């Protein structure tokens, strides 16, 4: 388990994982409520102490490993759709939120999934979240359809309600575990060579009397 001591986000180092998670989804599906409920356990009160809900962090301890979660909210309006890649660049996970009472918002999620897979491949952990299950009576997206779709694209599906605080803890906990697995897998594969090139390059460019010896190749991200 030595590999777990350092991790994919090299800069954070040590035994601490740092993950970036983006929140994607149409406006009004409850992205902000979801994350506020998770980080501050608040819903619809006046939140006077919280200045903003667009960037929130959460510290977790999962099976003895510290995890710093940075949750990036994104503007959901259609006209900002093209800016997506700037937001989700370098993110470890994405939470795609739709409103179970709104068929359109689910279609948007499908678009996002296609785009993310195209741009980031399988490195990113996807969660598809049907929010507002407290409005079960007005449901327009069927559970079977949503879960079937999620499985077909390699994503996990969750049902949540920010209002009733349902399913949110599980969603984030699951996501963190999956991101940790991905990070560890990545470390192992990177240990086999990818980082050597950068180290070699470094040795050439820096005037340095103890270049590589002080720092084993890829010391930051291999099991070294």
């Amino acid at each position, binding site marked *: 388990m030595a590999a777990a001591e350092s991790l994919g986000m*090299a*800069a*954070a180092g040590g035994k601490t994982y740092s993950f970036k998670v983006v929140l994607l989804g149409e406006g009004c599906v409850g992205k902000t409520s979801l994350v506020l409920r998770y980080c501050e356990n608040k819903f619809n009160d006046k939140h006077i102490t919280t200045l*903003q809900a667009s*960037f929130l962090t959460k510290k977790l301890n999962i099976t003895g490993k510290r995890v710093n979660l940075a949750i990036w909210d994104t*503007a959901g309006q259609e006209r900002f759709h093209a800016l997506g890649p700037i937001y989700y660049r370098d993110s470890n996970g994405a939470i795609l939120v739709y409103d179970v009472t709104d068929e359109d918002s689910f279609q948007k999620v499908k678009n996002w999934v296609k785009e993310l897979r195209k741009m980031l491949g399988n490195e990113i952990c996807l969660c598809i979240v049907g929010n507002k299950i407290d409005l079960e009576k007005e449901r327009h997206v069927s559970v079977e359809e949503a879960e079937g779709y999620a499985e077909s694209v390699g994503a996990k599906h969750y049902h949540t309600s920010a209002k009733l605080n349902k399913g949110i803890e599980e969603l984030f906990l699951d996501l963190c575990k999956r991101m940790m697995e991905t990070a560890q897998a990545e470390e192992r594969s990177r240990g086999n060579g990818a980082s050597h090139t950068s180290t070699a390059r470094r040795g050439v460019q820096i*005037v340095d009397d103890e270049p590589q010896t002080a720092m084993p190749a890829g*010391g930051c991200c291999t099991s070294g």
Partner: protein
Amino acid sequence: MAMLTTLVCFARVVCLCRAHYVTRLLLSWCMNCRPDVQIQITMTNMFLYLDKRDTMSQRSERRGIHVDQSELLCKKGCGYYGNAAWQGLCSKCWREEYQRARQRQIQEDWALAEKLQREEEAAYVSSHSSSQTQPPQSHSQQSLATFSKFEEKKTNEKTRKVTTVKKFFSPSSRTAPKKESHEGKAPSPSITRQSSIETDRVSRDFVEFLKTLQKPGREVHKQSRGFIESMGNKKDLSAEELSECVQDFYQGMSDRLLNHFKGSSEKVDRVMDQVEKYIMTRLYKSVFCPETSDDEKKDLATQRRIRALHWVTIQMLCVPVDEEIPEVSDSVVKAITDIIEMDSKRVPRDKLACITSCSKHIFNTIRVTKNEPASADDFLPTLIYIVLKANPPRLQSNIQYITRFCNPSRLMTGEDGYYFTNLCCAVAFIEKLDAQSLNLSPEEFERYMSGQASPRRQDDPAAWPQSGSRVNPALSQIHHNLKLLSNLEKRQQQVTEGAQNLQTELAEWQDSVAREVQEILERYPLEIKPRASAIDAENVENDRLPPPLQPQVFAG
């Protein structure tokens, strides 16, 4: 003659000490006073003797061997003997020359003093690191630099002796040509030459900070310096390659620190922040908006674009901000100030801090307006609006600079990184902005862009004054002030009129009083009645007095 012999003996003694300048000077001094052949011979012998003793200096050797009458005369051709220590001039010509040179020297000294101070500041920095012994050395070389030519090839040991001798003969050293003083300058690293007050301050802070780390601190300093110097040779690399160098350096440094601090990432981050501050302050000039990139062109394009979009309103962007609330408009102004201020910072992290501060003000405007925490749905449009209003200078260059040279751990995951990403989004949005993204028809958009129409004029004319006052509180304030001013003017006029009335009334009153007085005076002219001037006049009892006694005659 006896005196001369003594002198020669003395010269010999001195020459044994190898300070043959003294000898030479003494001899030429004698020569100038009593130019006679015997002394010359003695002197020639003396030189030969000197040259046997000391063959280090080629010039003096040549002089010693080839010395003859013509060479010993003053170079100005005045007929007196010249003196090697006085640049081959006689005492009189020398004095004139010296006075002139001294004026020049004083000016040069000022320049030199300034340079020295700068180098000393650099030396202060390096004196704290174990590896740097160069600056003190450079200082001694500096003082030598003004010394005479034939000492150039001497070893350090000898030159130090000469330095002390030099003090006795400062005039000769002063005349050292300007060029030479530059040659003698210490080969200090080119970077320190351009050091400004700010970089010096940053260096000092950096050294102070590293002192707390002790040995690894010295190591960090050494490597940072080495890196800066190596970057000095890479000026013609492309911006991307420069960025890669810096990023590699960050990576290497943080890896090593991570090893050293055994994984305490907070400590590593603290050190890395300082390293970034130090190296980027120094590299800023050469890597910000480098000539090899087209950053500048992009800057201008973005600036023009933002100017062309001056007509975009809060309503079009759906910005949840109500500028009529004073606190909100205050925050808007502060946000604009912060984003403009970004350009003035040198360190990527300081630039990021400006963006963060701007974002905080934006959150405040949203919170005050909507009374709930701002989500990204609110934040991004507001940021776009602020960028459009501010039109920050060199926006693209700044973004590129931060992307290229910021420590990645800050940029990727931190809060600062989030705001920076949003700024990038805002700029990207502004660049690609079209009719659809503002909910306008393409025709409308075209008209606004070409300046044929302005969105406000399109409003219902009836709503104009109202919307006018709502859109621009400053304008309504101006109207209000104007009204107050015109009121004030009216009242002032009234006051002036009143004052004039009062004045005329006063004048009239004065006249009338004068007239009245005149009338009265005319009516009752002053009459002075003649008075009885008799002595008895005042005696009221006079009447009652019996008549004066008459003399009576009695018959007798």
